[in-house]
C-alpha cells in the first residue's frame, strides 16, 4: 500500500481498513443508527443483531462461545480489564501477578497497578532471542500466583512466545493465564489459544478493522472472578458498561472473518516478503542484526538494527517509507526501546533499529522499492556519521 509517494510498512502499528470491513460499516453510519441496547424497538434490535453477528465472527476465529467475547474500545482496555479486573476480583487472596519485560506498556503498567490491590507484580526477563525462558517462568510460579500474562506475538520484534508450554506450567498449578493476542489474532492460527488461556485480548485495527474497538475473551469459569471494569448500564455481561458502537463492532467482525478466510495466503505472503527483505538487507553494505528469534516469529515483522547509524538519521532519510522505530504509542518518547533493552541489544544498536512491517497490501514491488530506500538512507546516514 502506498500513501502519496510513500510506501506503508508499519502494519504492526495499524492496518488500513479492509474494503469489506468498510462496506459492512456503512449501513451503521447510515439508516441503521439504533442504539444496540434499546430493547423496545426495531432500530435497537437491528443494531443488536449486527453486534451479535460481529461477536460471532470474532468468536469463530478463536473457536469459542460468542457469549464469552466482550467488546471493548481496544486492546489497551482489554488488557486493563483482564489484569486489573482479576487483580481487583482476587484482592482477598492476593499473590503474584507475573508478566514479561517485553509486554506492551498497558500490560506492564496494569500488572504494576495490581500492587494497589495487595498483589506482588513480577516482571520476568526474556532471553536474548526475545523468548521467555520456561525455566525462569517455572521458578517464578508460586502457589499464590494469581495470574500469568504473556503476549502471543511481540508488537515490536514479532517473536512468538511458547504459549502452549507456558499454559501447561500455569495449568499444572491452577493459575489463570492471560494472553495479549493483538498482534497474533488474524495473522497466525489462534484457534488453539482459547484452550490454553483464560483471558485473551484482541484489537480491531491490527487486523484491518477500525480503530477504537477490541475484545476480551473471558473463559466462562473465570468470569465471576473478574471485577467489572466499567460500571453503569450493565452492557457486555456487566463487565464493561457503555453503549457499543455497532459500526465499529461490524467492521471488527468482518475484518476477523476476512482474516480467517485469507490466513494461509497471508502467512505465505509474509514468509515470501520476509525472505525478500532479509536477502535484500544481507546484500547491502554494512552489518545489520535481526532483533528477536528468526524462527519463532511472525514473518511480517522484521525488526532490524544497523551498525554505524541511528534511527533518527535513518528515519530522516527514509521519508518515502512509513516504518517505525518501535511501538507507535512510544514513538514520541525519547531513548531506545525497552523491548530491545530487555533482549540485551546494546544501546547504540537499539537506537539504530527499524521495525519493518509488511501486510495484506504489500507487494513484491513495494518491498523492492523499500529496500532501495533503505539502502540509500543507510548510505546517507552512515556517511554523515563518519564525517562527524
Amino acid at each position, binding site marked *: 500500500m502506498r*500513501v502519496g509517494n510513500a510506501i*506503508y510498512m*508499519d502494519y504492526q*502499528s*495499524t492496518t488500513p*481498513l479492509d474494503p469489506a470491513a468498510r462496506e459492512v460499516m456503512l449501513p451503521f*453510519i*447510515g*439508516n441503521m*443508527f*439504533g*442504539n444496540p*441496547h*434499546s*430493547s*423496545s*424497538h*426495531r*432500530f*435497537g434490535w437491528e443494531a443488536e443483531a449486527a453486534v451479535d453477528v460481529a461477536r460471532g465472527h470474532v468468536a469463530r476465529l478463536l473457536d469459542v462461545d460468542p457469549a464469552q467475547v466482550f467488546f*471493548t*474500545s*481496544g486492546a*489497551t*482496555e482489554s*488488557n*486493563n480489564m483482564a489484569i486489573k479486573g482479576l487483580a481487583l476480583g482476587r484482592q482477598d487472596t492476593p499473590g503474584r501477578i507475573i508478566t514479561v519485560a517485553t509486554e*506492551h*506498556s*498497558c500490560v506492564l*503498567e*496494569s500488572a504494576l497497578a495490581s500492587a494497589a490491590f495487595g498483589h506482588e507484580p513480577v516482571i520476568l526477563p526474556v532471553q536474548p532471542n526475545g523468548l521467555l525462558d520456561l525455566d525462569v517462568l517455572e521458578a517464578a510460579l508460586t502457589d499464590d500466583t494469581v495470574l500469568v500474562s504473556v503476549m502471543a506475538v511481540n508488537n515490536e520484534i514479532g517473536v512468538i512466545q511458547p504459549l502452549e508450554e507456558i499454559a501447561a506450567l500455569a495449568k499444572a498449578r491452577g493459575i489463570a493465564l492471560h494472553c495479549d493476542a493483538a498482534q497474533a489474532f488474524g495473522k497466525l492460527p489462534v484457534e488453539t489459544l482459547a484452550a490454553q488461556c483464560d483471558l485473551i485480548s484482541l484489537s480491531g*485495527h491490527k487486523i484491518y478493522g*477500525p*480503530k*477504537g*474497538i477490541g475484545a476480551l475473551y473471558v473463559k466462562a469459569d473465570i468470569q465471576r472472578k473478574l471485577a467489572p471494569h*466499567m*460500571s*453503569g*448500564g*450493565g*452492557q457486555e455481561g456487566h463487565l464493561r*458498561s*457503555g*453503549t*457499543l*458502537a*455497532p*459500526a*465499529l463492532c461490524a467492521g471488527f467482525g468482518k475484518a476477523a472473518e476476512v482474516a480467517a478466510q485469507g490466513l494461509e495466503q497471508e502467512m505465505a505472503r509474509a514468509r515470501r516478503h520476509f525472505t525478500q527483505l532479509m536477502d535484500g538487507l544481507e546484500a547491502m553494505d554494512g552489518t545489520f542484526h535481526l532483533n528477536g528469534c528468526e524462527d519463532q516469529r511472525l514473518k511480517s515483522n522484521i525488526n532490524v538494527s544497523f551498525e554505524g547509524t541511528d534511527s533518527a538519521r535513518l*528515519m530522516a532519510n527514509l521519508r518515502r517509507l*512509513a516504518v517505525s522505530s518501535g*511501538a*507507535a*504509542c*512510544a*514513538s*514520541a*518518547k525519547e531513548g531506545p526501546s525497552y523491548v530491545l533493552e530487555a533482549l540485551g541489544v546494546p544501546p547504540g544498536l537499539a537506537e539504530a533499529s527499524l521495525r519493518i512491517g509488511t501486510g495484506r497490501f504489500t507487494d513484491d514491488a513495494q518491498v523492492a522499492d523499500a529496500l532501495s530506500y533503505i539502502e540509500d538512507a543507510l548510505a546517507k546516514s552512515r556517511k554523515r556519521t563518519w564525517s562527524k
Partner: protein
Amino acid sequence: MTKDLLYLDYAATTPLAPSARAAMERGFDMLGNPSSIHRAGRAARDAINAVRLDLANHFGVTQGQVIFTSGGTEANALALHQVQQERRFASAIEHEAVLAWVPEANHLPVTPNGVLDLEAAEAKLSEAEPGLVSLMAANNATGARQPVEAAAKLAAAHGHLVHCDAVQAFGKIPLDLAALGADFLTVSAHKIGGPKGIGALIVKDGFPLQSLLRGGGQERRRRPGTENLIGILGLGGALETIERYGDMAQFLPLMEQVIAHVGLQNVAAYGAERFPHILSIQMPGIKNQLQLMRFDLDGICVSAGSACSSGKVAGNHVLEAMGYGDRSEEFIRVSFGPETTQGDVARFLAAWDKIQNSAKAAA
C-alpha cells in the same frame, strides 16, 4: 404492509448527521496510527487535534482540556475516579454510569419535580470531607433541567470538585465549563448526530487527572489506547451541525402537543424547568412493557428509560427517586430530534389513544 417506522427515542441515540457521516468516510481512507511519527501517522494526529480544537472552543476551554474517551460511560468513570469512592456524591437521578461509582449513602435527594434538592444537598455536602459532586445538566429520563450552576457554587464552597454529566444537554444549551462552575464535564457524540463509541471528558485547566486505563502515552497519558480515529472525526462532523439540536423552539410545540393530549398530571417533572425534547409520560393502569409492545406494532419507537443491558427496564430509579413508586412502571419516554414533526407527534398520540382504549376495553 409495514408502516414506516417512527423514531421517537432520540435520548437513547440519534440518527447520524450527514456531516458526521461525511467526516467518517474521510477517516476510512486515513491509514496511520495517530501516534506514529511518519506522515500517515501525523495526518491522523492532525485530524484528531482539529476536532479537539473545535470541541475545546465549544466549551470555552483549551485543547489540552479535552480528553477523548470511548463514550459517556467512560468519561463519567474517569471523572468520578479522581476521588476515593466514599467521597463521591451524586444526585439520586444520575445515569447508572455515575451512580454505579457512588455509595448509596451519598446519593443526594431530588424534589418530586425531579430536580436536585439544593437544601438537602447543602446539608449533606457541608458536613462531608471534600470530595466530588456529580450532577447531570439534563435528566435522561424526564428532561428536567438540573441547577448545575447553583449546585456547583454550593459544592465548591464546601471544597468539593464538581462533575457535570452533560450527555443529554450537549448541543441543546450552551455549555461553558467555567460558567457552569464545573471541573469536569462529560459529553457523548451519539446524542448530537455523531457516532456511538466516542465521547469526551472536559477537564479544568491544570487539573492533574489520574488515568483510568494504564498503557501508552495517548491523550497526554490521561487516556491510553489507540484513538478511535473514525469516531473522533464523526464527533467533529456532528459538531459542525450541532445547532440543529440547539433550537429549543423547534421542540416546544411538540412538547406542548403531547402535554395537551396526555394531561399535565401524567407528565413526570411537569413543574420543572425542562428540556422540551425529553418527556416521561404515564398511561395510568397500563404497564410500560405492554405499551412498548403495542407501540412497536404500530411502528413507533419509544422506550422506558435508558437503553442499557438488554431486557432490563432501567431508568426507573429516576421516577422512584421522585416518589412515583409502582407507578413508575407505567411511564414511557418519548424524545424528539430535529427530524421530528408535529405530524409525527400526532401519529404517536393516535397510537397512544388506541392503546389506552383497547386496554380499557379489555379490562
